[in-house]
């Protein structure tokens, strides 16, 4: 994906749902992965690693652990893609 392309939020939502093994409509913008979707912290981490790979960005470990919902992931990845 070229770095200039902004991230498609709905595509992001689909990817997150796939990794978390939930329906797309369960992943609201502010739905908290761990508390609301009852996934474990390992899985939340896995989501971010998949996104890193998909969008060709490198996130710090602390950043990976910060991401708790779709909006947070979107914000972080958009910033990274813009900066790249």
């Amino acid at each position: 994906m070229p770095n200039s392309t902004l991230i498609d939020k709905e595509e992001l939502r689909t990817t997150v749902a796939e990794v978390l093994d939930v329906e797309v409509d369960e992943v609201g913008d502010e739905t908290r992965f761990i508390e609301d979707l009852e996934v474990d912290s390992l899985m939340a981490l896995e989501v971010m690693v998949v996104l890193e790979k998909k969008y060709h960005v490198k996130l710090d470990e602390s950043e990976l652990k910060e991401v708790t919902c779709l909006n947070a992931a979107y914000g972080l990845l958009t910033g990274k893609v813009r900066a790249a």
Partner: protein
Amino acid sequence: MSPIVQAPAPPAGPLGSAGGLAGLPSPLRGRPRLTALEAGRARSTYVVAPDEPVLAGHYPGFPIFPGVCLVECAHLTARAALAAAAGTGGPAQPAELAESAELAELAELASARFLGPVFPGDRVDAELAITGTGTETETGAGGRVAATLSGPRGEVARLRMVYREPGAGAGPGPGGGYWAGDPPPAGGRAPRDLLPHRPPMLLLDAVTAVEPGQRIVATWTARGEELASPAGPSAAYPPVLVLESWCQAAGAMVTWDQPNPDVTAGAVMLFGGVSAAAFTGPVYAGERLEHRVTLTRALTDTVIVEGAAAVGGRTVLTVGRVTMALRPAGTLARPGPAPAPEPAP
């Protein structure tokens, strides 16, 4: 699932009689018992016998029921339920299954999440939702299965599995190397010096090449003698053990510089999850597997790996993603006495 429907008695016939027929090869000696079976749903119960053979090697001094054996419990239940759904007159109980031309094969472990440990004596209840039977394959032997497994302390695993009709394997995979150019040859270190696994659950013979923490090539011959329920040479080797062996290669890669052969000391590697593990062809006893594992991402206490396994250049397993967590042994400490078991459903 209500009301609970008692599984029907197995019909008479060559499969139902079970007499004189070898059962399925399995790492388990025990078998889950189907307690309910109805269209699209099945439920089973399995009690981890304290003398179940895998426990001696997983791990010495700290017996913990392997994650792949939880998959095996669901797998045996699924095969029995799929046989019933296909209407092939097969047996209804996993204990009565025998390798046959009509038994569905595990094509893919699409997803597995391991949520909590299972200890000797625990009862594991599996709830399966089965879809896609009878329509996606010619024989109707295949299907898709979503399973939730619970132990005395809550959910222990969530699985999604895809089944295909027997003999409908993806055929020879791409073969050859998983990557171009191998890492440097490895010398000196045996799997038992790197991993806490011991027979019958040490499923790795040698590391042939390694770039510590990044890539590894390791081999294992699926002998068959390590199976608590062995079977004849024509029966395919349990796919869950092909995956377990691959994961042990991944474990050797991760711990190469910090071997951890004693599970009761230091960090323990826990199986967190699997995504897209495709079993692309059968493995038979006596065949030598070559595993290739590459690191996807390493974090302080978690690694994510991917790769493949081949027999003589024929790809038999591809792994999209396996997540392993390194945790202090103390966090695995067995809880106090388990709550009194609920009456069996």
